[in-house]
């Protein structure tokens, strides 16, 4: 619950510290800054989903592996990972979609050099007015890849969100 509670805070609340940190580290308008922020911002969801998926693995299997003399690493590599790979894959898909759709941090931490598609869309909302056709066109090009990706992986996404729902 503590992990999830970090997602309750509005992102704008952490904007100034994150911006100052990125500025001090010389990471403004770099891909690395976005990678770090995307990784940390969606980490609670990933922890929650992976925890649910790994919890579904029967404890007896792990006990059996220990009885056979498996070390901690072997237990993880040969038992836990093969059984939980579906959960890892589903979680990865969801986090990829969330990172793709992230706009707040992209707009505030990047400019021309490391700008994502959110920055491209926002550039069509200028003080001279909104260019609806171009704005829609840029938005369409931004959402098209992830909509197609989501369409083909919807089963895995739903599966990932319902881990641990039924015991």
């Amino acid at each position, binding site marked *: 619950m503590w992990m999830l509670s970090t997602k309750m805070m509005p992102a704008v609340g952490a904007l100034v510290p994150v911006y100052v940190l990125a500025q001090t580290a010389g990471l403004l308008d770099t891909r690395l800054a976005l*990678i770090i922020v*995307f*990784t940390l911002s969606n980490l609670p969801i990933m922890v929650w989903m992976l925890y649910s998926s790994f919890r579904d693995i029967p404890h007896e299997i792990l006990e059996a592996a220990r009885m056979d003399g498996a070390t901690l690493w072997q237990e993880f590599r040969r038992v836990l990972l093969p059984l939980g790979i579906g959960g890892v894959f589903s979680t990865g898909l969801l986090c990829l979609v969330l*990172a793709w759709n992230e706009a707040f941090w992209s707009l505030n931490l990047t400019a021309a050099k490391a700008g994502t598609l959110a920055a491209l869309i926002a550039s069509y909302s200028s003080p001279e007015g909104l260019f609806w056709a171009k704005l829609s066109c840029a938005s369409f090009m931004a959402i098209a890849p992830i909509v197609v990706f989501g369409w083909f992986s919807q089963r895995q996404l739903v599966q990932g969100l319902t881990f641990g729902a039924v015991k």
Partner: protein
Amino acid sequence: MAPKNPVSAVLIARTAVAWLVTLLIFFPLGWLVLTAFKTGAAGDFGAAAAVLQRLRWTTFVEVQRRSDYLLYAQNLLITSVVSTLARPGHRVSGGLLDGILRSKGGRATC
């Protein structure tokens, strides 16, 4: 004789509401797609007139010419994929640490 599966008024009302909600949800997306295939003037005018006009790719060419779409797409692809791959790394290392602590009788991390 009454039909086997009578279509009740409640069912019709529910279906209508469901369709209405669906249209409300998908209207912005449909409007976006239609406007994207319009020229500047038609797009500015609004969706209603834009529907009747022939769909064109000109705006896509203009957008690509003004700002390099592929550069932005590349940035987004790299950041989202790398951040997604980095997360299991964090989690796996955390899980291993957790396991080691548990096996040594220490306190679990989460």
